[in-house]
């Protein structure tokens, strides 16, 4: 996670083409390895192309500091805007690929365990996050049912803004109760006992993790150096 933050951090402060292109290639390789489902991968690439194209076009057409007119296909923009658009769309694509790749390659439970064991965040917060993660699908199902109940009750009419506001009542009631019940259950299961004899999932840094961090940093430095050298 730290490595991804570092890469994103460097991306945000670097307008160099070579650097952005290298990170884009690297992040795309990352996503190609982590997202195994071809359909999901294609959908993601299409979404990213659409998003980055929009960024490119907006910059090409409306970059206020652009002075050199250029025609690209049927669009009339500026050369400066085009340069900026290319870098920003590569940057946005890289950030999306890195984030999605991280989501696909990380087990949320292990991540929270790592936070608890290595960053020493309180267990209460860690497990609260996990329970919230577990409940996302249930929450979605509840909202769907509540919306359906509203449609049935108002005889198939459109749900008014006032009715949408009222729907918050049952959603809120369910979430609060669920939170209360889970907190009680975890305490009765020994959440507050402090006789720990070790972690079942040991998340301390292994040699391979250290090697990964070193290689990632070296790669970043090489890309930075090469991109500056070539420009």
């Amino acid at each position: 996670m730290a490595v991804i933050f570092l890469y994103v951090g460097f991306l945000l402060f670097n307008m160099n083409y070579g650097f952005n292109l290298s990170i884009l290639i690297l992040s795309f390789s990352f996503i190609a390895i982590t997202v195994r489902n071809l359909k999901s991968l294609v959908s993601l690439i299409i979404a990213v192309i659409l998003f980055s194209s929009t960024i490119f076009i907006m910059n090409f057409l409306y970059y206020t500091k652009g002075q050199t007119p250029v025609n690209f296909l049927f669009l009339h923009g500026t050369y400066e805007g085009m340069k900026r658009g290319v870098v920003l769309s590569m940057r946005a694509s890289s950030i999306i690929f890195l984030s999605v790749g991280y989501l696909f390659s990380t087990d949320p439970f292990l991540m929270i365990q790592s936070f608890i064991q290595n960053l020493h965040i309180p267990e209460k917060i860690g497990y609260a996050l996990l329970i919230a993660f577990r409940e996302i699908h249930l929450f979605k199902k509840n909202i769907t049912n509540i919306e359906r109940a509203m449609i049935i009750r108002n005889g198939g009419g459109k749900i008014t803004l006032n009715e949408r506001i009222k729907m918050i009542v049952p959603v809120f009631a369910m979430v609060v109760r669920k939170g209360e019940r889970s907190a009680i259950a975890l305490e009765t299961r020994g959440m507050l006992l402090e006789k720990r004899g070790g972690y079942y999932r040991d998340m301390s840094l292994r040699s391979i993790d250290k090697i990964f961090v070193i290689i990632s940093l070296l790669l970043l430095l090489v890309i930075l150096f090469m991109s500056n050298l070539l420009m």
Partner: protein
Amino acid sequence: MGINVSTLSLQIEGKKILRNITFFVGEGENVLILGPSGAGKTSLINVLTGIIPNNIPGKIEGKIEIDGISPEHQREKFIERAGIIFQNPDDMFATLKVEDEIAFSLERRGVSPEAIEKKIKYVLKEMCLEGFEAREIATLSGGEKQKLAVACVEATEPKYLFLDEPTALLDPLSTDKFFSFLHRTKRQFIIVEHKIDRIADLISKVVLINENGEMEYYGKPSGLFKSCKKSRYYKPKLINISCALKKRGLIDKITDDRGEIENAVKKNMSKFQKTKIKKHIGGNVISEIKGLEFSYANRLFQYGNYVIFGGKIHVILGNNGVGKTTLLNIIAGFEMGYSGEIRLFGSELRNIKRDFLYKNIGYVFQNPETMFFHNTVKEEIDYMKKHSYLNENEAAEWLEIFHLEKTLELSPFNISTGEKRRLSILLMVLGGKKLLLIDEPTFGQDYETKIKTIELLKKVREKGISMIVVTHDTDVAFDIGDFITVMKNSGHLKTFVKGDKEILSELKKKDPVIEITEGIIKEDENFPLLLTVEQWEEYCENNL
């Protein structure tokens, strides 16, 4: 040693919940806590486990000691010797995978990672969940989740188990597996449970709490169960049947022995007039389903054909996860990606306008709270009146039938479970709907509330409203169903008219009442099909 409760009283927000409760649980004894809905059974478990006042505020008077330990003040010592299982296993889980969930409790008790690994394998084997270590909890069925909850508790080797309606949300098959565990376990347990038949032989003592929170009975189960005078809701079903038979002089003593009841009936066969229960056949068809198929979550449900008659109750009986709710969602127009034909009120569902559909179709959700949006019960009712074509008189008539006068100024979220269920059905009938789709109407309810809900649905039928009720509860199915459809895995439907004995061969898990009737019918096929306690009592009352 043991559990000592002396003159225990509990007040929550100024309201007296429990009054002067005193009982003792000795070594090796198991206790069953009984009482009507809202009597304070769950509160008693919460007090015994220190959840009140540590997690839920409440004022306790009197003394509670568990092996000399106060669950309120010596929290850690108590938790180390107690295992608590709640109604909904989902509330107990904090992680995503089976093995991590079991490890959670063990890590906090100082067990080493190596020992945790061995323990996980052992308890999963004990609970018939071998090979489930890496399974995502979200992919488990309701029964598997409850088994996992038990495995988590068993792994910590508690001396006492505190069980609060652990089978309330389970289907008959999963319920059966849970009770098998209770028969095997070496732990002592205190349980709140309504399926008394399944547990009566394991119980040493019974605590019966009345609606005022007072202890109405404390002692051996036989003192409560073997008397016909005390409330019928707190006895094994077979005792109620033997009471009905004894009243007619057909059996000498009150018993819950299946063989004795069966023999008593067989001896008096001539007195049974062999009155057949009327079969309801047909009526006007209001809706018809042909060749229905639907894919959902990588599963194909092949429902096939189904007919809905006007003014009848159609029950769909099946275990959790076979596709009952999905079928209701399709009929309600929530899932339109089906293949086949669904004709509702004369038109194909795909072509029906949304306002026409939802003026005629009502849906009572499994969780009634899903349907409440207002601050008071009165506001909920007024909202429905605004969206209904019923006149004031018709609405007033429904309000009288549903008996919710006392709750009008209360929040719908703060009324009892039974009242919530009644309100959710009332809202639909007030909307003037002609066909009600009802999802598990007795889900998580005690016996008394369940019977009241059943009676209410019969009154709704009397007004000519058709219903499709999905349930895994055979009492509900056989008491109210004019047509009973058994749904198998993959959604396959097989429908039986009320009174059709063929249905017996379709039921995998039978309760003792059904087993008795089936045993008698095997010898005399003309014996009436009495499948619930209420049917036995009614038959004895009217025909013997």
